[in-house]
């Protein structure tokens, strides 16, 4: 026979398990292809250029999009770096950001498509080297 404590413990375990299972996130399927390039390669502390090429499902370049670029580090306490990408034509866009510290960086792309639809993408830039 289970003691009262064991039953309570079992209840807490079940609740925790349900919480774990219930916290998984669904991922939307991509509908825009984004080619990306970050230079210099390998990335190092200092200015960097992010070049993007947007294409739709039919592989046609997407023009007239607005792309806000945000550079983040993986540790709390680091302020993000923001930049607006300039359109170069033929679905190509370019932004300048600055890697302030060595380590892992994450570049977030906040894309607003010509029709007003929004999407976000993430580029992992691992191991930015010190100068």
């Amino acid at each position, binding site marked *: 026979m289970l003691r009262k*404590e064991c039953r309570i413990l079992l209840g807490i375990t079940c609740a925790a398990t349900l919480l*774990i299972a219930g916290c998984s996130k669904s991922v939307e399927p991509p509908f825009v292809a984004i080619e990306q390039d970050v230079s210099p390669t390998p990335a190092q502390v200092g200015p960097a250029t992010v070049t993007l090429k947007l294409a739709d499902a039919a592989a046609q370049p997407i023009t007239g999009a607005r792309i806000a670029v945000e550079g983040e*580090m993986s*540790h*709390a*306490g680091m*302020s993000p770096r923001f930049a607006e990408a300039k359109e170069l034509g033929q679905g190509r866009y370019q932004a300048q950001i600055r890697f302030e510290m060595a380590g892992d960086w994450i570049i977030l792309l906040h894309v607003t498509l010509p029709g007003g639809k929004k999407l976000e993408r993430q580029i992992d830039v*691992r*191991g930015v080297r*010190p100068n």
Partner: protein
Amino acid sequence: MNPSSIPAPDNPDSLPFDLMRVPGLGHLFRWRYARPLLQAPLLLLSLIMILHGLFGPTLAPKSLATTLSWLHFRGVLVLVLLCAGNFFCLACPFMLVRQLARRFFKPRYSWPRALRNKWLSVGLFVLILFTYELFDLWSSPWWTAWLIVAYFFSVLVVDGFFKHASFCKFVCPIGQFNFVASTLSPFEVKVRDQDVCTRCHTNDCIRGRREPVSDLVTIRGCELALFQPSKVGNMDCTFCLDCVHACPHDNIGILSRMPASELMADPIRSGIGYFSRRKDLAALAIVFTFGALLNAFGMVSPVYAVERWLGRILHVSHETPVLGVIFTFFLILEPVLLLGLAAWVTRIWAGSRRALLPLAVRYTYGLVPLGFGMWLAHYCFHFLTGLYTVIPVTQSAVASLGWPLLGEPRWSLTGLPANIVQVIEIGFLVLGFAGSLAVTYGLAESDCPDSPLRAFLPWGTVCLALWSASMWLMFQPMEMRAMLMSG
């Protein structure tokens, strides 16, 4: 009772400063519900951190879970320990949940005798340091939230089954960190007048205050088995103030003292025994000190070169064995080598009559200030350079609920400039070094009164080596990575 009821001293200058005499503060601490009052905001904050970690942004710099845990909590914790005492344990939110749970089910068992030491908590302390590096906890709001959930769960399980404060005394890794660090705090929960205790026959401070007829406990005594009249220092004291509330003579205060003084003496301590005979406590001090350097080493550029080199010679690409080797070196081989050598030289050179192991155990406590200096430098770097980041993160969290009450997140807010923080870091390291030199010299003086310098020099050399390593670490370029072996 109020602070003015404390008998006036004959010579006020000879008595230590007592926080309980501070108007307002004394009243607050004497109030029976002072602890829940302090715990409730932290519990609320913990719940917010859990929810934001699980359901909020996945990026660490944008999450309240990671920002508050790895920046603000750690920074405030070490500063409060340095400037006051173990007040985090007083306001511990986990204990509030435990207290609420104990209204529904009472623990029946006593903590197993074989585990009434620090070995389990030392192992958990190392495990937390290891998982912190392995899973990059600092970069994951999700795992940070689950770590907090796991903590609540562990408290409920341990203190649900076992009586008294078993979790605090024998399990909690944060508590052990606080216990060791608070040996350097300027305040201590202590009896004001030993004569009053000599005349006391009820010992309510440890037994609890009881109903005269039914003998039921109405105000709890110390759950950590610290009997106030023979309690020495802050080790194992959670500042819960149960003893203050239980003492019928209002004879317990929060008194000032010389930081680290308890490390220099070796009296028998209530609930602890002799420091010099506690190998488990010495192991805790070792993990505290060498773990401080190891934890900082995990954040600077050279660690990646070391990891790649180890990966090559071990022919492994997974991080676990590589980290295992690094941890074994830093937390076992290096301390054994340094402390063993210093103890051996002390025996030979200064003629100490102690055996090698007791000698090493005794002097290990002298390294605690160095370790605390390193923790302070490391945690305050993150805390001070990211001091204001909690503002935009909170603004963003509130806005994400659809209530932009706090305005647009001001992501440009960061913290103090790194060059200013570096000066503060150097200050902490120098303070820790000076503290360790003072404690080891104090130990040498009492150990070898005829040749204290000879007994001190080997330990002073160890302190110098560790301090040099700390300074070297601090001047290395920071490299914040979430994937150590990523190249």
